[in-house]
């Protein structure tokens, strides 16, 4: 009881019964989850289960239509805010992959740091993420998996977020980069940020502290939630098919 009250008090982001459609197809169905201050919540699920769609709907990307449900940031309903307003209120998304555009990383970093008054931390953050040498390169062009993920995480840090939605920051990344990325995520949490981490494999979890709750999404529905360690062990030992079989919806799996 006390735990529930505390969690409610510390909830920064609350997604309530959210249904999301893309091009008139329902992708996410009545998803509910909470992201807690100074904690890492984890969202896991198989490919094409709707995790990325949910994150994009939370940040308000055009084309990700909220059919029903609400999104609250510190109790304020932001469901209808335009994406740039949500971003400026503190919700930011680390994309799974970078768009292929001719924009030098240096210019993107400059534009973001000017918008969020974070120029003073550019050097520190880019050194921590081992990125300085990449500043002359263009976004999403010829970057390795690790470089892309670290670049994306740098943009998140520079946004000085209250909520960081991290879409598979560990996929296609070598062990060294995973450690660096985990280290920066831990730093974000220390700065009172609430994190929602999407991960397939979960390898990064062993480097993270302050883990809160894990959610399992299959076929667009959050079908299970529980302690991160318990959920992760079940995923490893039983696979996602177990959650679909035991808790999932009606669609064929």
């Amino acid at each position, binding site marked *: 009881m006390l735990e529930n009250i505390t969690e409610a008090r510390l909830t920064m982001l609350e997604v309530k019964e959210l249904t999301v459609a893309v091009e008139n197809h329902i992708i996410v169905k009545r998803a509910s989850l909470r992201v807690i201050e100074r904690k890492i919540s984890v969202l896991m699920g198989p490919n094409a289960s709707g995790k990325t769609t949910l994150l*994009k709907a939370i*940040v*308000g*990307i*055009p*084309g990700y239509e909220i059919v029903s449900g609400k999104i609250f940031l510190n109790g304020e309903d932001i469901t209808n805010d335009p*994406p*740039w307003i949500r*971003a*400026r209120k503190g919700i*930011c*998304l680390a*994309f799974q992959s*970078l*768009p*292929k*555009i*001719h*924009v*030098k990383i240096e*210019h*993107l970093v400059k*534009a*973001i740091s000017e*918008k*969020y008054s974070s120029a003073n931390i550019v050097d520190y953050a880019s050194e921590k993420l081992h990125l300085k040498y990449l500043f002359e390169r*263009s*976004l999403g062009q010829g970057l390795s998996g690790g470089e892309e993920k670290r670049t994306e995480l740098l*943009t998140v840090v520079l*946004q000085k977020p209250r909520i960081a939605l991290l879409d598979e920051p560990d996929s296609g990344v070598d062990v060294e980069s995973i450690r660096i990325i985990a280290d920066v995520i831990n730093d974000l949490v220390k700065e009172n940020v609430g994190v929602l981490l999407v991960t397939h494999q979960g390898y990064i979890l062993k480097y993270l502290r302050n883990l809160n709750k894990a959610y399992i999404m299959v076929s667009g529905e959050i079908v299970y939630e529980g302690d991160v360690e318990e959920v992760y062990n079940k995923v490893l030992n039983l696979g996602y098919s177990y959650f679909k079989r035991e808790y999932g919806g009606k669609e064929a799996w």
Partner: protein
Amino acid sequence: MVEVNMEEVVRKALEKASSLGLEVQRGGSFLLDETVIFKTLSNELRKYDILYLDIREALSNYRDLVEEYSRKIGVKISEKVSGGVLLYIPENVKVRDPIFTCFAISKPGFTQKIANLYIVEDGGEAVAAKGCLAYVWEGAHVGLTGVYLGKGAKLVSVMLHNWMPKVAVSAYTKVLALNDAELYEYYINLTSLYKIRFLVDILLKGEGAKAKSDMVIIGKGTSDMTYEVNAKLLGENSSAELRSRILGRENSKVVAKASITASASETRGHIECHGLLLSRNAKIATIPKLHSSIPETTLTHEASIGRISKDALDYLIAKGFTEEEAVSIIVRGFIEIGLDRIPAKLRGLIVKTINAVAKSSM
């Protein structure tokens, strides 16, 4: 009768040039219609046997030199011109600071005829910054430029166009490059105009001669713009790289042609033309051509025309930028080519220009 306050005209002209980053007063010359407003540097440069003169003065005092090199390059410099410059860099003399030359039209309906001759002798180096501007709504500018690059000579040429909506421009440049000579040409325009026909022929005659050209073409208003750059690889081991970035806005129409012809062995050429359409009514055509009569060459090209992708916009919007700001960031990135090739002293001018173009895309 309307009395023209010449001082006022000159003051405004200089202010405009300065606002574009063309610091003619610090080192260079300024031709307003057909009057040389001033030229600095000429006396200073003479100490090194460098000639930097109005072309009419050059035709009077150095006719043999003008005719000899015009003939070598294959251009005809007429006396019936409004002005122009002769820049002559003697053997092994290196001028690494930019020499600014500015041509401006201030009389409504005036046709400004320009002839320039740039001669860089063996081992010489020069950096030419050229600005062409108009302060009045309509006029015409006809330019002919001959460039001679001796063995091992280097020329960096940076050109900025800032015309007005009813100005018509016709510009032809012909370059002759001997052994191991290097040419880098950068072009950008800021404003709309009525029509432009811009043609550059580069003859890489010498062994190991190199040419690189970066063009940033901004289609605005109802501008009708045709640009063509042709490079001929005549010397063994010569190379050319021709790149362009074209922005199609409003009702503009841009045609960008580029061709590389290889006639000698171990030559290399690359053409890169990318167009970004920001308006449904703008039109862009990119026409890259490669020709070779010999097998020992490597010629490549890549070309694309498209609009800003939804992925790119979504990404920046999610980072907290409005759609207009996102477009501006993407445009800036798209047109930013060649900065690493531009001498440091001119980089600020170009950065300022591309920032202005990006901002006006919002």
